[in-house]
């Protein structure tokens, strides 16, 4: 799932990730409609790719309209409802007597949250959103349009963001959550955790470089190479998402986040049921 205000490069990111146009460019609206607040939408896109021998069926849910209005409070509720409803569907399916063997699991395994490159840490909208959603989905923080920042500024911004995460105790995905993994993996995860938030630059343009075609954004003062690790964390994030940690994200969603949700939901039902029983007893 992609969440972020418009203009941070969500669509371009996915297209760059999948190396094809998964999300088409938005239809240019009438300039007359600029003042209309567009309600948030949930647009689903499905694509299939082969990564390192594995077949991945990638479903991307884009959320245009998030944070674009004047009053954005309802955005959180809508996101939460969407994610919870995927859990509810699974809960329902699990408790069926006759279960559907072809059931498609729509649970959201990763929420990529695009931060605005302000230079001033997290905004109120970001803090509130992460607080509410972190218990239902793995949240990975990204810096959209990271070519706004110089190298020093990125380092400073990352520091500001992570300080905010600690101070407000924000539940983002912790790469080091599995204490039972071997020390090598643990160390690797700690290194990855130190890179969060990932600075992202996405692009549609391909040019011929020294070693074949490379993806770039061209400016009068220089050219940004998307896949160059010195210039953007895109390559690293792609590897983590589709290769090294893909099963971790799915595992954590299904075995930890979903289980917590399930327990909570069933306890609620039990409380409701026992209250009803008590009322019946009282009446008798």
């Amino acid at each position: 799932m992609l969440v972020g205000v418009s203009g941070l490069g969500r669509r371009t990111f996915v297209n760059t990730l999948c190396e094809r146009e998964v999300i088409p460019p938005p239809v240019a609206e009438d300039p007359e409609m600029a003042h209309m607040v567009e309600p948030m939408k949930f647009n689903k896109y499905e694509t299939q790719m082969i990564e390192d021998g594995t077949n991945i069926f990638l479903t991307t849910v884009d959320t245009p309209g998030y944070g674009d209005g004047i009053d954005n409070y309802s955005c959180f509720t809508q996101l939460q409802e969407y994610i919870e409803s995927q859990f509810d569907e699974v809960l329902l399916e699990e408790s069926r007597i006759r279960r559907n063997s072809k059931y498609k699991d729509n649970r959201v395994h990763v929420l990529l949250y695009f931060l605005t490159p302000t230079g001033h840490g997290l905004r109120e909208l970001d803090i509130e959103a992460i607080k509410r959603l972190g218990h239902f989905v793995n949240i990975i923080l990204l810096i959209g349009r990271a070519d706004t920042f110089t190298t020093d500024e990125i380092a400073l911004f990352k520091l500001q963001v992570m300080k905010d995460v600690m101070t407000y105790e924000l539940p983002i995905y912790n790469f080091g959550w599995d204490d039972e993994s071997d020390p090598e993996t643990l160390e690797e995860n700690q290194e990855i955790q130190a890179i969060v938030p990932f600075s992202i630059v996405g692009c549609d343009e391909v040019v011929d470089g020294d070693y074949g075609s490379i993806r770039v954004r061209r400016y009068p003062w220089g050219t940004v190479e998307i896949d160059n690790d010195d210039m953007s964390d895109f390559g690293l994030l792609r590897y983590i998402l589709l290769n090294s940690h893909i099963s971790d994200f799915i595992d954590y969603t299904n075995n930890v986040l979903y289980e917590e949700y399930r327990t909570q939901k069933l306890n609620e039902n039990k409380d409701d049921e026992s209250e009803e029983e008590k009322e019946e007893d009282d009446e008798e």
Partner: protein
Amino acid sequence: MERKFLKRGMNFNIILVGESGMGKTTLVNTIFAGHLVDSQGRRTVQGPQRKTTEIVPTTQVIEENNVTLRLTVVDTPGFGDQTNNEGCWVPVIKYIKDQHAAYLERELKPQRERSINDTRVHACLYFLNPGSKGLRPIDIEVLKRLTEVVNVIPVLAKADSTTVEERAAFKKRIKEELAMQRIQAYPYPSEEDDEEDIALNNKIKELSPFAVVGSENVFNENGAPVRGRRHAWGIINVDNPEHCDFVHLRNFMLRTHLYDLIEVTAQRHYESFRTQQLRQIKEMRAAQAQNATQMAQQQQQIQPGATLFKQQA
């Protein structure tokens, strides 16, 4: 006449409106080539998360082009930073109107000061979001109100992440939307304009909104000092017109249109405010006069009755 003006120096007041992190403070410091104002944004965790828009004016005397300017920069931290930004423009509009009101009050005094200290806002730099495809709903709400009381100059700061094509598309789109919404940014056409003025204004309209980059850092590029931003892929030179519109914005604000900004504020925005206020006062007085007459009439009706009573007694 001009020499007296130059000697006395003049007030130049600008207000910066835009969300935090849009590059407002850096741009001002770049335009005036000095660290005039501190960023009011939240730089550390302990920094304030503002709940409303605050008004923070800073005044300094500077020399610009052999003119002494008493420059006041008004920052508006907190603007547009909350989850719910309904009404975040109210303190800004109020501040601008209050300056007009203060000037009017001094103008109306029977004994006026020799030269009234002009705190009226002469220019408003409105910062657009570099990512958006065009105007956002909040931009439209605020710009509609701002353009009624002050000269508005829309600016696209932090233009590092926009390519040349993207900027052109963005500028075109913004102009279309402004026209559609009937929002008039500065400069305004005037009957007094001669051919040169018209040509200059057209050039500025062409460039608007100015896509700029600000910096207080100086680098060494090929032996020459360059004000810019150093990225891993190159250095953006603030003063290079092929990199950004900064030079054009600076010339526009501080050279070609400095006097015009001050004059238009007085002749257009202040006058319209003044007319509204005086009309309101007149209407209030008329209403009060009417009330007084009505009360007097009522009194007269009671009186004959009272005299009758007295006579009977």
